[in-house]
């Protein structure tokens, strides 16, 4: 099989992930999951990858450290973005307002409201949305727990499984544990909430049991992500693996993880 690649960019505190998906014998498509800043570095990175258009752009949830760069990204790819995925969480931030206003003026972009159970296929790659469910989305709206409205995506390619968990917290993990128990196990975990202790706890991480764990955090963030508790919990569940790794963009820069449909993954870092 050809390579499926994940590019976890070092963007300081926040998230910007590019997925490079093989299609057929030679083609590939690109998707972007969250974009805190569409700065020169991200522009160049996408250009160097040869991403002339984007099949999809995902806002896992409307926190600023996940969506602040999305309008600039969409502007740069004017007319070349297929779909925008949103959880539909009701959130009054000026950044989210700006994003919705942009989408309102650009009806060439298909806006998909995504929730638990949605499945999208691109060639041999399958993306299954594990969260948020409708109920949790409503609860989150009522309780102001925006992190639990995060779109969580399991990417499957052959036997390779990669879980992108947004900023999922206890309510979201509990839903996934009950409603998608067979789908939670993954070889690679994009660690929830920049390694926060509020998004990472033993039962959830034991269930996922990732060989590689990727954290996107800034080196001097005021919340002190990743939290020690989350790191120790990850180490505990990874003890059984020889090739276990916890990779933090703050320590190693950009992280590229690729796979060819098996449990073997290649990791490349900037440092």
């Amino acid at each position, binding site marked *: 099989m050809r390579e499926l690649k994940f590019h976890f960019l070092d963007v300081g505190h926040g998230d910007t992930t590019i997925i490079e998906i093989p299609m057929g014998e030679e083609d590939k498509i690109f998707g972007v999951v969250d974009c805190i800043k569409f700065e020169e570095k991200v522009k160049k990175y996408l250009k160097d990858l040869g991403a002339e258009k984007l099949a999809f752009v995902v806002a896992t949830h409307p926190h*600023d450290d996940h969506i602040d760069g999305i309008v600039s990204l969409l502007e740069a790819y004017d007319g070349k973005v297929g779909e925008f995925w949103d959880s539909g969480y009701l959130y009054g931030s000026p950044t*989210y*307002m700006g994003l919705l206003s942009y989408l309102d003026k650009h009806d060439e972009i298909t*806006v998909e409201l995504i929730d638990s159970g949605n499945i999208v296929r691109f060639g041999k790659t399958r993306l299954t949305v594990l969260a948020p469910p409708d109920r949790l989305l409503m609860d989150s709206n009522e309780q102001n727990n925006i992190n639990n409205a995060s779109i969580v995506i399991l990417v499957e390619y052959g036997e390779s499984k990669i879980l992108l968990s947004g900023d999922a917290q206890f309510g979201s993990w509990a839903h996934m544990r009950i409603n998608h128990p067979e789908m939670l196990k993954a070889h690679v975990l994009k660690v929830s909430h920049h390694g926060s202790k509020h998004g990472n706890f033993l039962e959830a991480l034991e269930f996922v049991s990732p060989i590689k764990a990727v954290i996107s955090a800034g080196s001097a963030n005021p919340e002190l992500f990743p939290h020690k508790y989350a790191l120790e919990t990850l180490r505990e569940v990874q003890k059984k693996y020889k090739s276990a790794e916890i990779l933090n963009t703050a320590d190693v820069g950009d992280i590229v993880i690729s796979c060819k449909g098996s449990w073997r993954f290649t990791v490349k870092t900037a440092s």
Partner: protein
Amino acid sequence: MVWAVKLFVDSIVEDTVRILLTYNGEDRKSVNTDIKNLKKILDEEQIVVGRSYLIQFKEKADFEALKSGKIKEHFKEAHEKGKITVKDTTNQELAKIKSLQKRLRLRR
């Protein structure tokens, strides 16, 4: 002359609050501050994520201070003397978002 800043509470982790400040209609800044500090200007018992406020200043210096992300010691006192007025605009902002989301949903 009254100067105004829109303030949005974007996230709270432990004692750190991330607020988004919008001034002159468009310019936006993300600022991290201490939750106790923010209470000086919002005068709220509890700071809640997702709330929007319109803050109006009679003193340009106070406006400039908040615009640059500084929440000053005297803000609470100025607030009490009416030199700073704070209006909770959460419902108006959410109504705008709801309407946009509905339009985008109907477009499908």
